[in-house]
């Protein structure tokens, strides 16, 4: 009987371990294939929720980062990512074109509004859109807005955004041409390669929409990004560089790399693919089948910040979310599924009345996941 008791104990323990190892990630990734393949029912439910969020005017006070600049960035980011998601739905689902374009245009109108761009105005002491003829960077605001406007222009060649879109891209090209190291500043004295990746995507999408070749500065800028922005050891993107010479001010990190890989998917597929491969090779880990991206390169550690989000055990929330997009873009179903399982676990999706919201996501989380999980697969845009 003693042996039987021990056998029962062992069986119970084995059952517990098996239950933990086999069941949870499979339960959480059960919808991953549907998202990867763009199943309409999934996409429509999240699109409906994001449309609900962006139908009302989000205020900076809806975001509680502890910094008015970051609150403003997140407000802008919500509209921008939502616009990307709606635009990407049009790429995959022509039958939803008019509804999705209307939703996208609502987001673009909000992203371009004076109130929403106030965070950038405050940082620069000048309004990005009023100062388009000036020399100063505004890389994040103009770059991110330019990407969304560029995607929209590829879907609707002529609209009330066209003139402003032309002026934004012209300003970015001119400023990039004058930049000493090939990088534009996001804020005075602050240069982030990931924001410059958005600038390149904005320029590329504009050229494609108008059927023009990309300007020479685009090629030079991409070369600068590749030479100075990419860490040679890991292949990851450096998080921050100096304006004057492009030398690194921060380490290579996964959050910037993943978001840049997403943006560059609209501009330069080989570089986007190289960044995704670096992420998959260097940063991707699974724990009990749940996938996540380490924020810092293996062997190094660092603080969590507004870019990384929390980094429990070194895993970056932002990097993991953005990598969903690059995985889908580059046809990496296995990585996508493992990352999706984690997003499902910690995002805590909740379905109601034909909508899906991520309980721990709120407007920004839903908008980012919407953009990432509908990121265009190769051939859809490039």
């Amino acid at each position, binding site marked *: *009987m003693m042996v039987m*008791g021990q056998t029962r104990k062992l069986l119970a*323990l084995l059952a517990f371990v098996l239950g933990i190892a086999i069941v949870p990630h499979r339960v959480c990734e059960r919808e991953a294939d549907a998202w990867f393949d763009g199943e309409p029912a999934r996409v429509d439910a999240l699109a409906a929720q994001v449309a609900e969020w962006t139908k009302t005017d989000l205020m900076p006070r809806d975001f*509680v980062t502890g910094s008015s600049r970051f609150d403003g960035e997140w407000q802008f980011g919500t509209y921008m990512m939502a616009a990307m998601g709606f635009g990407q739905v049009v790429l995959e689902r022509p039958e939803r074109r008019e509804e999705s374009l209307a939703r996208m245009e609502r987001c673009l109108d909000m992203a371009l509004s004076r109130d929403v761009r106030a965070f950038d105005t405050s940082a620069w002491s000048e309004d990005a859109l009023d100062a388009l003829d000036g020399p100063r960077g505004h890389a994040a605001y103009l770059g991110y807005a330019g990407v969304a406007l560029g995607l929209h222009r590829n879907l609707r060649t002529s609209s009330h955004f066209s003139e402003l879109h032309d002026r934004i891209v012209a300003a970015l090209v001119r400023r990039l041409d004058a930049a000493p190291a090939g990088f534009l500043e996001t804020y005075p004295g602050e240069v982030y390669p990931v924001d410059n990746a958005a600038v390149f995507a904005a320029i590329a999408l504009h050229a494609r929409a108008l059927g023009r070749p990309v300007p020479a500065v685009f090629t030079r800028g991409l070369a600068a990004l590749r030479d100075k922005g990419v860490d040679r050891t890991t292949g990851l993107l450096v998080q921050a560089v100096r304006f004057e010479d492009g030398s690194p001010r921060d380490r290579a990190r996964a959050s910037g790399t993943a978001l840049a890989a997403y943006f560059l998917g609209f501009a330069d597929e080989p570089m986007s693919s190289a960044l995704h491969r670096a992420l998959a090779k260097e940063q991707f880990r699974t724990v009990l089948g749940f996938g996540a991206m380490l924020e810092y390169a293996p062997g190094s550690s660092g603080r*969590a910040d*507004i870019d990384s989000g929390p980094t429990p055990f070194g895993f970056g929330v*932002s990097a993991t979310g953005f990598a969903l997009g690059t995985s889908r873009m580059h046809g990496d179903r296995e990585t996508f599924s493992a990352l999706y399982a984690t997003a499902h676990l910690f995002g805590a999706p909740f379905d109601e009345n034909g909508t899906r919201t991520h*309980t*721990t996501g*709120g407007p920004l989380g839903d908008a980012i996941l919407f953009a990432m999980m509908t990121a265009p697969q190769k051939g859809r845009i490039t």
Partner: protein
Amino acid sequence: MKASLPRKSIGILVASILILLLDEALVRAMAHGHVAHVLLGAGSGTPPLGAALLALALVVVRVLAVVAVPGALLMSAVGFAAHYFVGGGGSADSTSTGYSTGASIGVRGTQ
């Protein structure tokens, strides 16, 4: 042999169901909240205590519900199966045999 059900397996089953219900309730209650902003903004400032606690509770309960409960349910099932096919030795069951005083007494009593 089957005079009483395996108490520990029942306990695990009930606890698992309670955790699942709590997870469902928390997810539902917080579905329209802005918990993400607390979580994502943690790097740049101190989040409000109440919101942080709510967020933490959801994360802990959810990890338990999604990761631990399947293992616990399987363990409980093994306990019920062992009790049904082999017998519990009084009130003992597979999961309690090795863990509880009652189970040990049951084993001794048969020797």
